[in-house]
């Protein structure tokens, strides 16, 4: 993955619009957050291989970036995106890595299902 280039990532988001795609969306503080800091309220969410179709995908040029997908009946968005890659299987992998290199958020888009 490399750091977000807004124009390049916008073109990739456009390329998946109006197609049936599989989504991986994840936010996380890690399972140990409340172990290291007992005052920490640990929350996160995870969906994987949910199939949807978006009519408009947009990245906002404000780092760390926000990426939103407008669907026929709703929305998907991720906040804190720093890195991206179109992998060898043609999947668009976006992630927000914190200052120590730990993943805090991920949004991935693929025309084929992700592994289990």
């Amino acid at each position: 993955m490399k750091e977000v280039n807004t124009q390049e990532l916008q073109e990739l988001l456009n390329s998946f619009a109006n197609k049936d795609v599989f989504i991986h969306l994840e936010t996380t503080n890690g399972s140990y957050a409340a172990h290291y800091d007992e005052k920490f309220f640990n929350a996160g969410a995870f969906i994987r291989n949910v199939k949807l179709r978006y009519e408009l995908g947009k990245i906002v040029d404000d780092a760390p970036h926000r990426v939103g997908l407008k669907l026929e009946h709703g929305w998907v968005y991720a906040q804190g995106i720093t890195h991206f890659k179109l992998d060898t299987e043609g999947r668009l992998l976006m992630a927000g890595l914190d200052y120590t290199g730990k993943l805090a958020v991920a949004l991935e888009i693929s025309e084929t299902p992700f592994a289990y």
Partner: protein
Amino acid sequence: MTLQEERHVLVVYPHPDDEAFSVAGTVRMYRNMAVPVTYACLTLGEMGRNLGNPPFATRESLPDIRRQELVAACAAMGIEDLRMMGLRDKTIEFEDDEKMVKLVTNLIEELNPSVIYTFFPGFAVHPDHEATARAVIEAVRRMPKEARPRILAVAFANDTVEKIGEAPIVVDIRSVKDDKIKALQAHASQTAWMMAETEKRIDDGEVLSDSWLNVEKFYPFTFED
């Protein structure tokens, strides 16, 4: 404490690297005694957070990296029977409980272990650790009392000592410390930062009293019936 001979040792943990932190030294000592050891690793740590910055992996490539690290760590520990059980990181507690018990029961029936190493329920911090421990304990609880393997469990929640006291079983692993370090180093995606910090402290001439390189501590899990 010196380790006693065992018929077969079964290690059950959910993530590649759980075994390196928890039992690498103990396992290496068993292997040096020619005791057979099977490690059932339930997931490939697919949801690990550390991808580096700049990143060395993606969410999708991490499992392959961690599989290779796990194989290398097992080589360092002398584990020849590694079972990768194919579950997904952070989902074990949401699996069907009976399926999880059956998974452990099948391993016990096949291997007939005399002791199982896993986590201690209630004091294992990570939801996958807790779910793994519950499955192991339920599988053993269902066995006839006289046929049950012993369960030696790792507990590291912050309130462990307060609630259940100091670990009664302390294995001195200093003789195999280098092998434990190798096992930890094998899990580089997870441990590189920590290992670099430790090496720097050694280079700085600090006397390391890190207990995790000198001893491994276990709580026997006992049943009331």
